[in-house]
């Protein structure tokens, strides 16, 4: 089972890197006469309303979805971990202020926060990623701070301080590496969460710009055809579920 998660992730990463290896169809240019065809040997995932090959759209869409989710996690990871590190290391008033700000962030539902950020920044893949990422800053900050506080109490860090290490030096050499494990696990988990969040935003009408074949948008738009062309929402949906499941599994392993 373990290899399966990694295989799924490896496959979609390959899709993103060399899509032409997996499909010969153009994701944006369809043959209108071949619209809404069910899955077949010629079209693995069938075709959509304007005759585009759905599998090609899923494969070419992986780069948008993966990079979107990665960017979202990146925003949360970098900003959150940084804030958490600072709060946990400096303590005192700074800690108090940073963590209260994080409380505020946590108190506003993530989806609402993301929607607000998108309206502020305007639609588009990058902006959606930032919007989703902002929602996870608080979780990363809390976790990073807790880890730092834990690591700081350990003997060897105390010793490092005692033997005259500078604050930044100790932070970089001892605190950071030792508190990284759980943070990376959270990042893997958030990766799956981000893919879901991006697709939810697509459903609410704040997705990537058409005709970008972003996964969330594919599921969201295919839903209207559920009664007539089940594959349009089900197959991209299955891909997303598989990737999110795999990310969750991997997160557990790291932890």
């Amino acid at each position, binding site marked *: 089972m373990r290899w399966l998660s990694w295989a799924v992730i490896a496959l979609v990463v390959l899709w993103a890197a060399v899509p032409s290896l997996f499909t010969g169809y153009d994701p944006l240019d369809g043959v*209108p006469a071949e619209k809404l065809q069910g899955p077949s040997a010629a079209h693995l995932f069938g075709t959509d309303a304007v005759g585009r090959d759905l599998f090609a759209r899923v494969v070419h869409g992986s780069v948008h979805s993966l990079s979107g989710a990665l960017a979202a996690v990146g925003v949360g990871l970098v900003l959150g971990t940084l804030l958490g590190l600072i709060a946990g290391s400096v303590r005192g008033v700074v800690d108090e202020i940073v963590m209260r700000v994080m409380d505020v962030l946590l108190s506003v539902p993530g989806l609402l926060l993301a929607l607000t950020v998108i309206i502020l920044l305007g639609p588009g893949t990058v902006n959606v990623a930032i919007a989703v990422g902002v929602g996870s800053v608080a979780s990363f900050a809390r976790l990073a701070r807790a880890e730092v506080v834990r690591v700081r109490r350990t003997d060897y860090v105390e010793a490092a301080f005692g033997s005259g290490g500078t604050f930044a030096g100790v932070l970089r050499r001892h605190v950071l590496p030792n508190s990284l494990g759980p943070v990376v696990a959270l990042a893997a988990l958030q990766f799956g969460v981000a893919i879901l969040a991006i697709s939810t935003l697509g459903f609410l009408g704040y997705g990537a710009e058409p005709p970008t074949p972003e996964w969330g948008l594919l599921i969201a738009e295919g839903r209207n055809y559920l009664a007539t062309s089940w594959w349009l929402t089900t197959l991209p949906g299955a891909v997303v579920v598989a990737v999110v499941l795999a990310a969750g599994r991997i997160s557990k392993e790291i932890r």
Partner: protein
Amino acid sequence: MSSFRPAVVTVAMLAAVGLLTSCGGSGAGAQAASDGEPVYGGTLTYLEHQPPTCLYLPAAGFYPNGGVLNQLTDKLTWQNPETLKIEPWIATKWEINEDATEYTFHLRDGVTFSDGTPLDAEAVAANFDVYGRGDDKLKLPPAEFVNNYERSEVVDARTVRFHFSKPSPGFLQGTSVIGAGLVSKKTIGLPYEEQCQLKNVVGSGPFTVAKQVVDKEIDLQARKDYNWAPPSSTHQGRAYLDLIKIIVTPEDNVRVGALTSGQADYVRYVQAYDEATVKNAGFVVKGEPTRGVNNGLYLRPANSILKDIRVRKALQAGTDAKEVVDTLFTDNYPVATSVLSHLAAGYVDLSDKLVHDPDTANKLLDEAGWTRGADGIREKDGVKLRLGVFVAGPQPLSKQTLELVAQQWTKIGVKLEIRPADSGTQAVDIKDAEKTAVNHSMVGRADQDVIKSQFHTENRDVILSDDKKLDQLLEEESALADETKRNEKVAEIQRYVIDQGYVIPLFEEPQVYGIAPYVHGAAFEAVGRPSFYSVWLSK
């Protein structure tokens, strides 16, 4: 001059022919107008696609608004949707002077608003003073279906006269549209934001509001003492139904699924791809024509790329409307043959000007100095040939339509940038020809003036026109008293906007409804808004 005019008959015949051709695919045979004796009572569950916005009557053009207001209000005159003839309703008869600058209406006796006040000459005058001139103090804009209005004159309690500064031949038809629904004097005296709210709308129609859950549900109950249906209606007296539950259901698949599984009786906005599902389940699909300016792409000459007519003409030639219809739509959506629907007053067939011809398109773009870049997209002086458009929420399958057009334009080296319909930026950018070079829209109304509504700088102005000649043509049209001359002018305008490349007409947009087989007497006004007055249930 009476209400019988030869041109009206011509239009009516034209319309009848059109109806015959357009109803071919709408399963017209399945819907019997009345199976047996009508039954009183029952509740109709009607699913609406979007919540109503503002219920100030001139804003009733928006279909969700119109669907409610059509049941709550009556109009001075009734436009027979089959013949398009204007027939008596609240006005029993009328006189129009020779140059159409004076209209006198004689009102029916005994009509009351649902608050008990009489629907008399004073009330009618108060309504049209607002619809004709607007009211700055109350922030009420004038209605687009009234042109050249000067003043009203209450001759006696049941006679009202309207004076116009210039001929206003469209006014008679204007009194029959949904936006001209009559409301009580109290309602019409309220400021804009209050008239917007359903609870303040007091009309004389066959239904009144029983309950409202904002943005979710509106319950309408029959008015027991209603007794003033249009004389030509076979059904008189109160409505057959007791109650109508209008439920806002934005999800397309939920509306259709609810209908076919028996949870709803009547739904608006059945998407083209769901028509077969509805029909196969034994339900009726009704595609009602909107007889106005066609669904199409409107090109803005104020845009720095589109100011060159060659580019506009190239886009026209590079668009294959037939492919759009064949791929995404059904027989209920006829391919456009002019900027107007073939059922519209004054329509001319311009299909020879609208031929899909990528070679001409490429040639025109070459001539205009746009050369292909490495990515296949044309450029000139370092500027890419990129044009922005917003997905139009109210238009059916707008996004898919635009995606398909974008696919067609790629072949002539033009990039259409489709922006999701996000209302925030949209509200700002849609008025900016640089950011929104192309507008996807339509407007329905069964009168020649509809073309003015779409293009005039004082009306919708979809192309953000800087063309004085176009405005002048439209003004001339709206002030021509003679029907034939008016139609000629409308024909001239159609040719003009197509020759100028202001529009790429795509298809004639219908309103498509799904109706359960036990629902009888489904009727629509001239541009496809439902009337529930004569609906009855046999379940």
